[in-house]
């Protein structure tokens, strides 16, 4: 062991050893683990505590609503060559990005110039060099022990504003990279545990919420120093040699764990899952003419598992990059995948190891998931957007594999969507403010193989699901929460349903003007996700509602009913029944920046999705349907028409199920299905003519197919062959 080699040479050696042995660092045996398993485990938990302590310190020092209230941040510990050893709680999607950033410093020769020394601070947020999008600022610090670089500490926080062309940090509207905001491109941004003054000056003049952005920077730094100081104490106690050996073993251990879980819980073969992501912008306020367009992105997943439990993923068929922020780089996508893998494969030492248990084929150059080879200036302002939909597929496909092996307790259906609410304007303290709310960090959880998902307690992009306290958010932002209620039937329809999402109702308060954006970080609005797992119906898409120029002040004075949710009947929403307004829209297709400026007593109704269901809805236990009726989380027409449950509301307000009538109704539904269903071959004969003619297909759909087929000729050949279309057929 030792670090005599230059880090760049050590990187090369690590790669060689992995290629030769299939083990990280060539560790065919986990010597420290075998020699002293108790110590090995104990030090792992100490390192975990070190990172989590940094998270606590950093979030509190930051004081920004996103970090302090939402915990949307992360601290990690890395080997000298960048592989992540251990990470805090928080936004674990960033572990891969942080590891690749440190590797990039080494590959760029920074060890020689500007060199690495105690107290240095390095940073990147530039997607061209390994970031995800500008608001996620990745920072790292080398850790020295008796003069030797023995580790790196890293951190990421999601800042409220990174100076993109429009306010906020969910920058879906960016037309190109020049609108993405303030870049920090693999830079040394400080020395001697202090930021350079010019780094702080840049933040002050180029972001809209400099106090919060600087607060986050100080929080990251405080956490990094915490990791460093606590690690040095740990090494003092357990010795450098043990730390160096064990830290590498933790990574190889985790790789082995991921491989073993796949081998023990899955089945070798080929998995395919289609998924799509809509982006409807035609006719809305956009920044450049090229953005006046509706788009559908193809987000396909193919997973091949071989006899050695190697997992290989492909995005063949992915459609082209878009003139918005919804593009992502392969580096960021792989990092997101590592987090998704941590949820569904469940390795218990979360670090870089499982990255080496997975291969992701290079996505089609020029696609939304690999834009730069064709369009170097593509925006990645909200890179997570389509990637989130892709990761949602990962949940379902692994759930299917686990079912086959009988591990029903590990199954999950598809994930919820991610639509973010962002505000900007003058806050209650008279200052300009950008306000990312945290509602989206608390979806319902996916249905499990044996029960329903949980309501408003889960999030795809972070294991740290937390929408913050309404009362605290009201201190930060100039609005009042009129409601934060479970949305009925927001978890799809199935034998087991997803956990319910929640709907937030905000009233602008103590502000002369605010602007609201239903921003896309992975939303669907025109379509439902392709998650009808085992015959369930997918949950509906994301639509928001708002009212500007309302009579709410008068209603409050008269103590008349307000609005606390959407209401049970989508055809007759509560907003329209209870409120009058100069402008009201109950069905806004997202994403969107609503055109009206909002003033005091104006309202926004913002849904956060549940997650997906699984199983034939008529197999749902009638007792569960009754329970949902009693709690008001399903509607009576859904109970009868979709679940086939005949129930009547009793005098005491509780529902009673008529078991016999329910059995008969369900039998009738099965017979009706057999009557109306047609043999697939008959449908295929008719449908292929419709496909060939492009009948009833929005131009966005055709545009997507043209793009997918151009970028992935093999995928195109399969589509043409399936519909028996000529070799030169194009949509």
């Amino acid at each position, binding site marked *: 062991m030792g670090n005599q080699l230059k880090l760049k040479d050590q990187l090369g050696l690590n790669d060689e050893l992995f290629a030769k042995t299939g083990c990280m660092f060539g560790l065919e045996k986990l010597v420290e683990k075998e020699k002293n398993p108790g110590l090995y485990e104990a030090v792992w938990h100490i390192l975990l505590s070190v990172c989590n302590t940094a998270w606590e310190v950093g979030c509190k020092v930051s004081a920004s609503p996103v970090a302090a209230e939402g915990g949307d941040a992360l601290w990690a510990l890395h080997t000298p060559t960048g592989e992540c050893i251990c990470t805090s709680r928080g936004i674990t999607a960033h572990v891969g990005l942080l590891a690749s950033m440190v590797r990039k410093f080494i590959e760029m020769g920074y060890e020689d110039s500007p060199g690495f020394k105690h107290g240095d601070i390095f940073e990147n947020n530039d997607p061209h060099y390994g970031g995800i999008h500008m608001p996620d600022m990745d920072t790292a610090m080398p850790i020295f022990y008796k003069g030797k670089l023995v580790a790196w500490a890293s951190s990421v926080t999601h800042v409220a504003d990174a100076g993109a062309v429009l306010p906020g940090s969910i920058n879906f509207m960016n037309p190109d990279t020049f609108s993405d905001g303030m870049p920090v491109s693999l830079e040394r941004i400080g020395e001697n545990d202090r930021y350079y003054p010019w780094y702080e000056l840049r933040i002050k003049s180029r972001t809209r919420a400099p106090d919060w952005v600087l607060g986050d920077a100080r929080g990251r730094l405080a956490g990094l120093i915490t990791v460093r100081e606590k690690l040095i104490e740990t090494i003092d106690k357990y010795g450098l040699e043990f730390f160096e050996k064990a830290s590498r073993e933790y990574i190889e251990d985790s790789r*082995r764990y991921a491989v073993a*879980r796949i*081998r*023990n819980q899955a*089945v*070798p*073969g080929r*998995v*395919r*899952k*289609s998924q*799509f992501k809509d982006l409807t912008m035609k006719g809305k306020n956009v920044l450049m003419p090229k953005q006046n367009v509706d788009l*559908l992105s193809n987000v396909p997943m193919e997973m091949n598992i071989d*006899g050695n439990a190697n997992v290989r993923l492909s995005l063949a068929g992915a459609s082209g990059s878009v003139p918005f922020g919804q593009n992502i780089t392969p580096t960021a996508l792989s990092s997101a995948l590592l987090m998704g893998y941590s949820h569904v494969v469940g390795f218990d030492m979360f670090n870089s190891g499982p990255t080496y248990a997975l291969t992701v084929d290079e996505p089609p150059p020029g696609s939304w998931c690999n834009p730069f080879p064709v369009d170097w200036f593509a925006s990645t302002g909200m890179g997570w957007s389509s990637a989130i939909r892709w990761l949602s597929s990962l949940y379902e496909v692994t759930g299917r*594999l686990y079912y*086959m*092996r*009988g591990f029903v307790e590990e199954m999950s259906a598809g994930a919820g969507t991610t639509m973010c609410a962002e505000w900007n304007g003058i806050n209650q303290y008279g200052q300009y403010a950008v306000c990312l709310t945290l509602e989206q960090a608390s979806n319902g959880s996916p249905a499990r193989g*044996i*029960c329903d998902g949980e309501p408003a307690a889960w999030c795809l992009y972070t294991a740290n699901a937390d929408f913050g306290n309404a009362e605290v958010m009201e201190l930060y932002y100039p609005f009042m929460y009129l409601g934060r209620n479970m949305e009925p039937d927001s978890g799809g329809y199935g034998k087991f349903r997803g956990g319910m999402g929640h709907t937030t109702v905000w009233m602008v308060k103590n502000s002369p003007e605010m602007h609201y954006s239903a921003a896309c970080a992975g939303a669907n609005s025109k*379509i439902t996700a*392709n*998650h*009808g797992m*085992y*015959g*369930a*119906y*997918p949950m*509906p898409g994301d639509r928001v*509602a708002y009212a500007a120029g309302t009579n709410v002040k008068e209603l409050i004075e008269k103590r008349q009913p307000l609005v606390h949710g959407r209401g049970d*009947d*989508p055809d007759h*929403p509560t907003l329209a029944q209870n409120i009058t307004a100069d402008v009201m829209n109950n*069905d806004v297709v997202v994403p969107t920046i609503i055109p009206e400026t909002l003033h005091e007593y104006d309202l926004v109704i913002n849904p956060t999705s549940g997650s997906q269901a699984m199983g*034939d809805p008529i197999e749902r236990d009638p007792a569960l349907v009754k329970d949902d009726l009693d709690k008001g989380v399903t509607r009576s027409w859904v109970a009868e028409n*979709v679940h086939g449950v005949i129930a009547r509301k009793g005098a005491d307000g509780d529902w009673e199920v008529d078991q016999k009538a329910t059995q008969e109704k369900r039998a009738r539904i*099965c*017979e009706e*299905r*057999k009557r109306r*269903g*047609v*043999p*697939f*071959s008959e449908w*295929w*004969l008719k*449908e292929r003519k419709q496909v060939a003619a492009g009948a*009833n*297909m*929005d131009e966005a*759909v055709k545009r*997507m*197919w043209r793009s997918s087929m151009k970028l992935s000729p093999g995928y195109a050949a399969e*589509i043409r062959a*399936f*519909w*028996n279309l000529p070799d030169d057929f194009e*949509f």
Partner: protein
Amino acid sequence: MAEYDIYDIEDIRKLVDGELPWTTVQQMMKNGKDRDRFDKWVAILQGRVSWKEKILLPLTPALFIVQKPAERVVKCRCGHEFGDYRVNWKLSALIYVRDTDEKISEVYRGHEKPDLTWMQLREYYCPGCGSQLEVESMPRGCPPDFEFLPDLDTFYREWVGHPLPDTVEFADRTPERIKEWSSR
């Protein structure tokens, strides 16, 4: 990874049927995974179907790959057969497409309704029992997902440890079925 074969078949049955307390389920999730779960799982499922063919792989709660005398086919719990498991079984199912406002309104209402020029809602039914086997939400032009083509021989030989008596090629036979239809 620690592996604890501490659950017997009755424990697994209770798990599957939702009879275990949530705390016990959580403990099962945290524990290492029992290596013979698959054998227990198949034994439970085999006891719940009325037909005799050996289950090779449970595909979904309704569908199984089973061993027939000379082939491996997809079979519904009701007994209906869908043919060679290497052909997407959806090609042998009944399909119903919700592509009009009237049809989609039976499932979604008001702002919940998707735009049917952007997607179709396809329902796949078992011709035997009318079970809704899968639902797909896809734009027109998308072939049905062939969700999983297992490499059964590798699975049984290398992962389960009981090789199957015969072997078949691991290959997607769906395109051949389409070619047959195309030549009609």
